[in-house]
């Protein structure tokens, strides 16, 4: 099992109030699955993604990633896992504005301590795979939204992670561009990658092979398509 969540809670303290973002979540994901997470705004989708992506830790319960208990790890150990196992794609792209597309894609390799000699080759390979070859030396503000999201996907793929996490990757794109991005995810899934994707749109979710619906921090349904 790649991901195993058991009786997991995430609670935020806001002043004296407790916000239960996630309650009693238990589910697992196997290698190669393509999972869509849906639910109304505030239902806990992003919170769940952040925990699965090791950006955050659960308040209670257990999260096993490849058999390792993540809840017990410290900052640097979490960083190592993010570097080696996780690829993030954000709704707002989150590219570094002062760097070129190439440099943005290369950055995870540097943090992953890849030797310089092999880096350039990997970057070109990955950028070609998302159809960005000739835009490599442009900065993000010189690229269209679709192109930016391709750079972000290339950056997520560059370390060959075990899981690709995408939080509303088409949320800031028009439907045609969104569909193009979804085709890239389809290709990645067909190549055997594990993908977890958050979306509000039913037609986007239908690309996935499994749909998990959240409501008020709980799993409301979990169905295969």
């Amino acid at each position, binding site marked *: 099992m790649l991901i195993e969540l058991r009786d997991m809670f995430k609670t935020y303290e806001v002043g004296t109030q407790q916000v239960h973002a996630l309650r009693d979540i238990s589910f697992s994901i196997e290698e190669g699955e393509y999972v869509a997470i849906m639910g109304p705004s505030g239902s806990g989708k992003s919170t769940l993604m*952040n925990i699965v*992506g090791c*950006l*955050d830790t659960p308040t209670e319960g257990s999260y096993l990633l490849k058999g390792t208990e993540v809840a017990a790890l410290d*900052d*640097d150990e979490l*960083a*190592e896992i*993010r*570097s*080696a196992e996780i690829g*993030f794609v*954000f709704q707002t792209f*989150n*590219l*570094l504005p*002062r*760097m070129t597309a190439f440099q943005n894609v290369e*950055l*995870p390799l*540097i*943090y*992953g*301590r890849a*030797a*310089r000699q092999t880096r350039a080759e990997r970057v070109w390979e990955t950028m070609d795979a998302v159809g960005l070859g000739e835009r490599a030396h442009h900065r993000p503000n010189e690229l269209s939204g679709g192109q930016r999201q391709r750079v972000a996907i290339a*950056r*997520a793929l560059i*370390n060959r992670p075990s899981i690709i996490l995408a939080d509303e990757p088409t949320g800031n794109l028009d439907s045609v561009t969104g569909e193009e991005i979804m085709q890239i995810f389809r290709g990645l899934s067909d190549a055997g990658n594990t993908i977890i994707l958050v979306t509000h749109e039913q037609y986007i979710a239908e690309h996935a092979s499994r749909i998990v619906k959240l409501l008020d921090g709980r799993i409301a349904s979990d169905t295969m398509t």
Partner: protein
Amino acid sequence: MSVPGTEIRQGIAKAMEFRETLLSSIRTLRSHKMRSLLTMLGIVIGTGSLVSVMSLIAGLNSSVSAQFQSVGTDIISVSRYPWVQMGNSDEFRDRKHITLEDAAAVGRLRSVGLVAANIHTRRHLAYDGRVMKYTLVTGSTAEYEIIDNYLVEEGRFITDLDVERRRQSVVIGADVAGELFPVRDPLGKDVRVGGRRFTVVGVLKSKGDIFGESLDDLVIIPITTFQKAYGSRRSVVIDCSPAEGVSVERTMDDIRQVMRARRRVPRGEPDDFAINTQEDLMSAYNSLTGVLYFAMTGIVGLALLVGGIGVMNVMLVSVAERTREIGVRKAIGARRGDITAQFLIESIILTGIGGAMGIAGGVGIALLVKAVTPLPAEVTVGAVALAAAFAGITGVAFGVYPAHRAGKLRPIEALRYE
């Protein structure tokens, strides 16, 4: 063909990573030119004053120590005026003259070795239409050569016979030789010293200059001739050296006793004359450089502190502005140390550029002082290295806190930051 070892390759990879961080830091600083420049001002002033003052002191040190050696180390000089005067010098003017008889009495002391009485005035020199104005004219004896450490380049020094017979003999300094005899050999030529005719018997080796004043712009004549020519109502300076095996202190005590007795200084009153030694000059010089060092340390410390606080401020602002960037970097695998190192390097680059500008400015000031004033200056590797080190240390010291803050930002919170 040898394959480079893995350590070397890892080293290269490390260096490359550093290069990456360096380039990204420079990119950031370039995008905030004005702010970075203002921050660097303190560092520039700090390192600049460090380099310029240290260069100045190094220059003074080397010229002064050379000078002190050339004067002769054991010399004791009795005169109305102390070499190093503090406060009002009017009180010295009313003091009784020191006489040739005093010099003779000092010379009779057993603790005294050689004695050379000497008198000074300033006169115009002339030879064959060439004129030198207000040159130092010294009247003395043969012993003056040894006690005051003069070396003869050509010809001879004043002799006992010159003194005995009140000869019109003159020994000229290197500057005088150069000025009055640019082509001809001065030996045997007749020059005018204050209108009177003297025959050149010797030329002195150059002693160089001290604080921009030449020590070679002088002539020496027999003391007896001096008195006949320019009058005897002038206070005498008694230069002497301790006798073989006697300490300078012992000799000074004896001289003090004799002089007080001859000048009838009542018991309990202070001396109405001065006994000068090299040490007085040395300690005066040391207190001067001490003041310079003190002032420099103050300025440098303050400027680096102000610069450092500026650096810290800029770095904190930079961390705040780039919170989201830090979140993104962490999300894609940056460790705490990667982020801390990035900001620390940025801070060091900030102070490093400031330091480089300050060092360049300091070297410039030192060279300018050397060129337009008589003060010597010597830019030393030590001064430059110290300034560079201070700049770097300031970068680290004041960059640590912002860098640490950046490093420990929690990734989700950083990503949420608007």
